[in-house]
């Protein structure tokens, strides 16, 4: 099986290269025929998905993989600084890459009919493939500057996709807001990378993590990096672009944008756990740095949950409500990560109970990344379907749709139960982990989390009642069920949601636990590149 080993060896760059090449071939292919173009994009992404599976199997069985560009050996002889660009893939990366490929495939399937009657579709598919490329790049890379480049690509492409409806003024407004926020965030990140390079003469994450001293400049760098990445992932004080961008772009685009946001979250996980991983329990200060980072991250997470839930309650626009819910869900992840950091810091003298609770919180948070992407994504797909059928998104002008759109109604019900953490769905599994573990860290946190989750249920029961139930509205009498490709995409997401909800252990044991261990084990990540102990 020589060729199989070759593909396994070169799969990390291929995962980035295949969608990138496909992106620039798409305008050529679309000269032939629309159907050929859609099939081409779908097949190229399926090939990428196959490569992801091969790489994932390899990493989960054999441990961390390093791919050095432009050379076989880890380092050219005589150099003691890794100057080359490297991809470093551990279980956490694999987890995120799998989420991304699921989102990308379903979004392409959904846009087959959803975008059918729009103009400029060759450019649309090109930009979507470029966005997918950049998300993969951010997740696979082990080099800080390379991370910045992919981050900027994702900013530019997401902005272009948000402004897809160029003839609608509100989507232009949202796109401008997005690009201002995200380019300022990216410049913060570039400045921080410059500061790190000035001190440690390296851009490689593992090398920097090995050398880091937690000086005054390192604290500034930490603040800049977290701020920049939080802007990208829509954490509370920097969340104002997110509801606009999510609610005013086409539903298929929003589905991938969720992936881009989660890549920002992944970046902040890498910063906290890998670059600063060995400094979290630095004893040179009055408090552990981990405790302070943890408290700040938890506070921001709780703030996001509050803002997201209350703003969602107040809205009357269907898509905006879901977008604010997305802010709240990001808050749950940051709450879990912050709880882990607090638990880690509190456990140090003689309190291992806290570390166990913290580890469960981390697992719950990581698991929630997958669940949030699917739940919020499904709701957006349903919102897109309702818009496709009725051209309306306001709750006041919709009603009684369950008569004509019975499948869409069922999918919305599944998404509703999943997003508010009801038992048979996947949201329950991850939220229960978060509630349980944060209760041991501090009961108040878990009470807030539970109450806000119940309020999310209230939000969506209201939506369900006013859109799908109730008397028939005369103007919506001739509404038809949406086309098959959209139904297939929604059914696929709903099946994954129910499957994870029924068998959460399969995912937790095979994907989430290795990912959490990879994050906690900073030393392994560093020593794979730096060598020695």
């Amino acid at each position, binding site marked *: 099986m020589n060729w199989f080993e070759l593909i396994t060896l070169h799969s990390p760059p291929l995962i980035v290269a295949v969608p990138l090449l496909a992106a620039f071939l798409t305008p050529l292919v679309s000269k032939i025929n629309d159907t050929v173009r859609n099939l081409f994009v779908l097949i190229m992404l399926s090939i990428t998905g196959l490569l992801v599976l091969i790489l994932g199997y390899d990493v989960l069985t054999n441990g961390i993989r390093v791919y050095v560009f432009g050379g076989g050996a880890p380092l050219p002889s005589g150099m003691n600084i890794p100057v080359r660009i490297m991809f470093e893939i551990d279980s956490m990366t694999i987890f995120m890459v799998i989420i991304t490929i699921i989102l990308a495939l379903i979004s392409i399937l959904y846009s087959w009919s959803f975008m059918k009657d729009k103009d400029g579709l060759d450019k649309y598919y090109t930009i979507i493939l470029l966005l997918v490329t950049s998300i993969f790049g951010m997740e696979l890379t082990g080099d800080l*500057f390379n991370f910045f480049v992919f981050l900027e690509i994702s900013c530019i492409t997401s902005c272009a996709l948000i402004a897809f409806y*160029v003839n609608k003024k509100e989507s232009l407004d949202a796109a*401008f807001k997005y690009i201002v926020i995200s380019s300022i965030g990216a410049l913060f990140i*570039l*400045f921080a990378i410059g500061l790190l390079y000035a001190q440690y003469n390296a851009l490689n994450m593992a090398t920097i993590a090995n050398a880091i001293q937690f000086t005054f400049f390192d604290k500034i760098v930490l603040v800049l990096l977290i701020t920049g990445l939080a802007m990208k992932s829509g954490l509370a004080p920097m969340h104002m672009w997110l509801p606009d961008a999510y609610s005013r772009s086409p539903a298929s685009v929003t589905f991938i944008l969720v992936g881009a946001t989660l890549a920002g979250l992944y970046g902040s996980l890498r910063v906290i756990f890998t670059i600063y991983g060995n400094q979290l329990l630095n004893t040179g200060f009055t408090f552990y740095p981990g405790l302070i980072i943890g408290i700040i991250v938890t506070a921001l997470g709780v703030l996001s949950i509050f803002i997201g839930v209350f703003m969602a309650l107040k809205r*009357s626009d269907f898509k905006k409500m879901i977008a604010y819910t997305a802010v709240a869900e990001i808050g749950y992840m940051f709450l879990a990560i912050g709880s882990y950091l607090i638990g880690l810091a509190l456990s140090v003298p003689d309190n291992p109970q806290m570390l166990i609770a913290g580890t469960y919180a981390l697992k719950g948070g990581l698991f929630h990344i997958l669940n949030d992407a699917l739940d919020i994504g499904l709701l957006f797909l349903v919102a897109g379907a309702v818009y496709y059928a009725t051209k309306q998104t306001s709750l006041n002008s919709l009603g009684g749709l369950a008569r004509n759109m019975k499948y869409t109604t069922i999918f919305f019900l599944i998404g509703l139960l999943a997003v508010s953490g009801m038992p048979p769905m996947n949201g329950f599994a991850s939220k229960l982990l978060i509630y349980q573990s944060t209760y041991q860290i501090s009961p108040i946190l878990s009470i807030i989390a539970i109450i806000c989750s119940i309020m999310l249920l209230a939000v969506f029961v209201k939506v369900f009642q006013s859109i799908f139930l109730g008397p028939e509205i005369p103007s919506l009498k001739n509404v038809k069920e949406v086309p098959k490709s959209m139904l297939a995409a929604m059914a696929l997401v709903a099946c994954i949601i129910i499957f994870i909800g029924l068998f959460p252990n399969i995912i937790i044991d095979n994907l989430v636990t290795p990912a959490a261990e990879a994050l906690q084990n900073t030393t392994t990540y560093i020593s794979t590149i730096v060598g020695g102990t």
Partner: protein
Amino acid sequence: MIYNIPFIAVVAMIFIGLFAVLFKRNLVKIVIGISIIESGVNLFLITLGYREGGVAPIFTSAPSEVVKNAPGSMVLPVPQALTLTSIVIGVAVLALMLSLIMHIYEHYGTLDVRKIRGPEE
């Protein structure tokens, strides 16, 4: 002190840019602010790359005594490479923002952020 002047300029440019983004009402001025922040960051990277007595790392055009006696004084050109990449990205972002502004002006007929609002709910 004299060596710190570029770094002071960097911080000053970043804050001037942030001020423009936060307090200016005109969209074009916001874009100018972002551009100033970007120039500040680029200046920072370039300043980092300066080494006194360093030689550009082009092997064929370096002075012959440097090649013979002190090849170590050639500068590793990473910061310059970073700056070039960052400038290219900056141009792309700038072009995208300006084209968005053109479309916004077509629809709203103004560039004042207070008058550019989405639909009221």
